[in-house]
């Protein structure tokens, strides 16, 4: 349980291959510590709000960043985003949307719901690694959250 309270990066992704590639990319950028991967939106929200199977977790031990896929089983990414950004305790957590397309409607919806940034999941893995690096650095290292 102690580890759960130390989760720095929450990855919400149902595609295992994509998860593996994301983890590899994070790893390549030395950001592989305290990463939790959940497979659907419900679980993600359960974690953030310390409920369900994460009920024992410290609610205040919030992840430093959430990488959120939009296409998720049960509760989809936009819904999750909407909940997160509508609760004051979760609102402050930077959420980076991972998307396989630049589909404008998704992006616009995301920004309206208060997403902090987004990363295209490129077919070219190198580009993905570069994107993770740029964003991870900013949000994990430079952008200090308020107390």
């Amino acid at each position, binding site marked *: 349980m102690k580890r759960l309270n130390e989760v720095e990066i929450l990855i919400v992704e149902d595609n295992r*291959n994509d998860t593996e*590639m994301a983890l590899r990319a994070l790893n390549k950028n030395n950001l592989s510590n305290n990463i939790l991967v959940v497979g659907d939106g419900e679980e993600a929200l359960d974690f953030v709000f310390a409920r369900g199977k994460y009920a024992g977790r410290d609610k205040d031990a919030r992840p430093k960043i959430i990488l959120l896929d939009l296409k998720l089983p049960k509760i989809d990414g936009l819904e999750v985003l909407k909940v997160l950004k509508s609760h004051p305790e979760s609102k402050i957590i930077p959420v980076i949307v991972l*998307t396989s*397309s630049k*589909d*404008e409607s998704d992006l616009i919806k995301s920004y309206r719901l208060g997403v902090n940034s987004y990363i295209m*999941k*490129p*077919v*070219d893995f190198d580009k993905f690694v570069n994107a993770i690096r740029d964003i991870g650095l900013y949000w994990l290292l430079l952008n200090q959250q308020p107390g």
Partner: protein
Amino acid sequence: MRYDFFSEGCYGDLRNGVCCKLLVAAFLLLLPLVLLSRDNSNENNHRDDSLPVIIAASEPDYPPFCFVDKNGNPAGFAVDLFRAAAEAAGYSVDFRIGVWEKIKQDLARGTIDALPLVGRTPEREDMYDFTMPYLSLHGAVFVRNGTTGISSVEDLRQKEVVVMKGDNAEEFVRRENITTKIFTTPTFDNAFIKLAAGEYDAVITQRIIGIRLLEQMGITSVEPLPFQLPEFRQDFCFAVTEGNDSLLASLSEGLSIAIANDTYEQLHYKWFGPEIQERIALKDILRNALYITVPLFIIFSVMAIITLRRLIKKRTRDLRNEIAGHKQTLELMHKQKLLLNEMEKVAKTGGWEYDIDQKIVTWTDGIYEIFAVQRNSFDPSDFDRNLNFIDNEDRQAFLELFTDSMKTGEPYDIELRLHAADGIFKWVHMAGRTELKNGKVVRMYGNISDITQAKQSHEKLKNSEEQIRLLLNSTAEGIIGIDTDGRCTFCNQSALRLLKYDDERSIKGESILQLIYDKHSDKTAMPGAGQGIIRAIEKGEGFNADNELFYRSDGSSFISEYFSHPVKKENKVVGAVIAFWDITRRKKDEEELKSLKDGLEKEVAERTGELNEKVQKLNRIQKAMLYMVEDLNYITAELKEEQQKLERSNKDLEAFTYSVSHDLRAPLRSISGFTSFLMEDYAGKLDSEGMRLLTIVHDNAKKMDTLITEILNLSRISRTEMRSSEIDMTALANSMYHEVATEEEKRSFSLRIKKMPPSKADPVLIKQVWQNLIGNALKYSSKSENKRIEIGAEDNNKEVIYYIKDAGAGFNPEYTGKLFGLFQRLHTENEFEGTGIGLAVVKQIINRHGGNVWAESRINKGATFFFSLPSESYYSIKSKSHEKVE
């Protein structure tokens, strides 16, 4: 005046020597006169053929007044006297012979003019007009010798009396109811023959005539009775047909003259003198008797004296009666004279006579009256003084006429102005006739009539006629009078003017119908011409017409309106008056008005028709529009359905593209990513062939990703809403070049961007256009030595045509049509990389903006790509109208 013949009856009775002696003496004394009168009568028989003729008739058996002489000619006292009177009045006489009953009827009928001897009886007053009487006879009763018992008229009551039919004796016996047994014979001869033969009891006739007839016939067995028939005293006159006043006046005048100048006296001697001459035949017998009976003479003388005394007594009584009758006749004559004077006064006329040898002028009272002078103090024979009565102006003309007549014997008639002695001005008519002897005028006579009144009324008439003429001429209407034959009797100035005649003489007396109506070439009238005018004459009805043509003298015509009025006298049509005027102008105006009206009506009808047509057209259009609205509603409904369908398919498409961009990519990413991991993690365990194959897998995965990306892009272009704003095309093209071109390309290419007009379009999409076109230009120039790109535009007001020109590989113009198709490529993958989507995207974008794309090129000669966008103004208008429609 002598009436000796009244005593003839006693001569007839006596037949004794004393009487014969006396008669012989008287005859000797009268012989020259008788001879003279015969001469005169011969001379009188010499008729002047130039004189007007009176037709008269004489009876054959009324001696000595009217009878037929041995030569078969009419003769007798009355015949001669009539001739003399007629001649004095300036007539000659044509005598015919006929039985009294017939000639009496002829006169009543007017077949003859006059009879010389007609007894004036009340019965005849209604049939004839009579002159003054010139002879009075007394009737007598004739009986057979020895008849007794008849001594007065009353004794005839039971007797058979015979008279000549139609004689005044018949009238007398019937009028006085002398007897109930009245018989008639055609002549008195018959009556006497029958009486002598023992038939009847008495004959009643004029005493003198009876005696004369008996002598002529040699009947001695009949004698007149001595008593008078006081009621059968007959006055004899000349008679004319009733009403023939002028002849009556002339004969009266002639009779007066014959009496005045002793012709009467001479004729009397002539006809009653020879009675004595005839007795001269008895002279021898008497002489013989004288010689033989001298011894008896004394005895007879004594007896005769006794008888004579008795006779004288009787004679004296008879004479007294005769004298009484004579006096009566004188009184009558006087009355006649007075009547003549009265008549002259009433007629204001008088007679005159001028005895040229004696230089004596005789006037009747009428002329004294006219000159206002007194018979006892004024001598009409002073010719010069008489002339002074004549007005100065007329005097010379009268003198010339008078002098001429004196020389030539020609009669004259003249109207003169007179100043009577009392200063009164008069108009007179003077007639003068002459009597010639041996070609020389010996006597002149005539009459003078005061015609002042007639003159004045004539003058008045003339004035009123003048006024009527002025009135007629002052009217504008033509007025023509016609008689029953349709001939013009008068016309006014307007009629002449309208019909174009200079002078009324060219119209007067002419047939108006022929003058003013159209006619055939042979001058006969057209059928029906002038019916209205003819009707006025024939039916006596007024008529009005306004549609007939009147022809002028020059052959031209005009439309006339006329009124024809019949002129009637005593309910009989004697002609007509036609008032007419020219209405050609009026007719023309009426026709113009009518045609104007017709035109207007026609136009109104046409316009109404047009209007109706338009209304119908509008109705049709309205109906069509209703159908269209219905269609539109239907189409709208369909469209709505289609839109819903479209929306559904759009949603489906969105879901599809979403799925493609996410679900299709995930395996690609895995292929690509894990291939990369394999090559990284197992690099040392793979040979070069293994590495090459992995690289192919990796590259194809990437290529597929690119394809997916671009297809999604293309689909997005057609789906996403356009947001137009003004774009600085020069700047956009420039920035796109710098975005698309690599650093190396920027160095190797020469770029020229001309100043381009701005455009109003979706900036994101137009940016894509420039991106693709510039990318193409760079790509297809990459293998060319001449690396040059030119960008520019042309504005033709309607649209702006943008172009980008390179000097690269170009393409075969045959395939220009394929250039903008999806996945269409004109170069192999080996020559130039590409997906075949870029130009399809460009076309899609430009078409969505209402523009066109096209390209020109030749292989290895470079290519120029054009795209057009509507001009900003044009676009805005189009856009606005587009909005409206939506």
